[in-house]
């Protein structure tokens, strides 16, 4: 592979699989060029979906598309590989929480991407669904921003997915997100959330969620978009700065650098715990929410409790 074909490039300056210049080192230390990186990522996403049975033939998948890097990457890849599952289809769903100075830009990016790919796109908003936007709800509650937003966004996504007839919801959580969530749940002592597996779905209660990018690192996602020329520089959510996740991210980044494989180990631990502790054996009985039917341990599920606390 080296020599004339490489244009004089040495082994150190070329991809492990071709003479092209490398753009990244993979987890195994291999240098990959843009072409082989994108092929590697797409293969791993495809394998992840196969192993987890994330998509079945004929499935209509609602793709949660915020317009940010992860969901955009996910949509690009799913659009490319969807033909692997006969008669499967996708609709992109964008939820406008109503965050001033932030969400408009990401929605424009989402619309631009779906137009470019020719993908069906459904956009709905907190104002439409709940009567007010997130900025209104968070007045005086900024410390709970991510919790409130997350709960309501999940409800909005589920409702929108059902409205377009989707069988599953695909979210853009990457490997770093998943590992951060494991650590956050441990730090909070939240065994229930740690053990809950939203990919399985519970009959009649909620749509199964799939996470195609859960085996891809955030850095790989970013690089994928850059080499594809599909990255849009957008601001970070203004509420994210106050989140525990920011601190956990910084901690985990440091741990991952010094002890490569930490993220995967956390996720393996989570999966082992899930095998041991199924939802039926969690403290307290689980039953349908009195308001929406979602599985919960109280009279109301988290989404409905949140809405009640916000006066809806």
């Amino acid at each position, binding site marked *: 592979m080296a020599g004339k074909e490489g244009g004089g490039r040495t082994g150190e300056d070329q991809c492990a699989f071709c003479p092209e210049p490398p753009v990244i080192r993979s987890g195994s230390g291999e240098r990959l060029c*843009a072409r082989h990186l994108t092929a590697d990522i797409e293969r791993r996403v495809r394998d992840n979906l196969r192993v987890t049975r994330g998509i079945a033939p004929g499935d209509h998948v609602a793709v949660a598309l915020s317009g940010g890097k992860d*969901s955009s990457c996910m949509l690009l890849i799913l659009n490319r590989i969807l033909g692997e599952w006969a008669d499967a289809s996708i609709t992109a769903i964008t939820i406008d929480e109503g965050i001033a100075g932030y969400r408009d830009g990401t929605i424009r990016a989402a619309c631009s991407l779906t137009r470019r790919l020719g993908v069906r796109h459904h956009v709905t908003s907190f104002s439409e669904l709940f009567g007010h936007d997130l900025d209104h709800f968070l007045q005086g509650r900024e410390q709970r921003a991510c919790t409130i937003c997350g709960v309501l966004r999940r409800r909005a996504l589920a409702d929108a997915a059902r409205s377009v007839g989707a069988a599953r919801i695909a979210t853009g959580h990457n490997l770093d997100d998943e590992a951060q969530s494991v650590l956050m749940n441990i730090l909070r002592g939240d065994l229930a959330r740690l053990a809950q597996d939203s990919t399985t779905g519970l009959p009649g209660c909620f749509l199964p969620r799939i996470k195609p990018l859960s085996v891809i690192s955030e850095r790989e996602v970013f690089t994928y978009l850059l080499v594809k020329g599909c990255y849009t520089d957008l601001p970070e959510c203004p509420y994210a700065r106050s989140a525990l996740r920011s601190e956990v991210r910084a901690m985990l980044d440091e741990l991952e650098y010094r002890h490569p494989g930490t993220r995967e180990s956390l996720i393996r631990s989570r999966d082992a715990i899930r095998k041991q502790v199924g939802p039926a054996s969690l403290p307290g009985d689980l039953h349908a929410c009195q308001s929406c039917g979602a599985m919960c341990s109280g009279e109301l599920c988290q989404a409905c409790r949140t809405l009640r606390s916000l006066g809806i």
Partner: protein
Amino acid sequence: MQVILPDRTVQTMPGDPVPIEQLLLRLGILPTGVIVVKNGRIVPDDVIASGDDVVRIIRVAHGG
């Protein structure tokens, strides 16, 4: 060597050959949190920077 930091400020550094990973650590930046562009091309962090290279450090954006 010119190094463009994530906040777009520019530092001029000696041109002695240095692996980009070490350069990042000297600047107090974790390699896993950034992408590096050397002379207009994305490169892995084990590539050497030296001489008149222009190295741009881009922080990996968060939020999906």
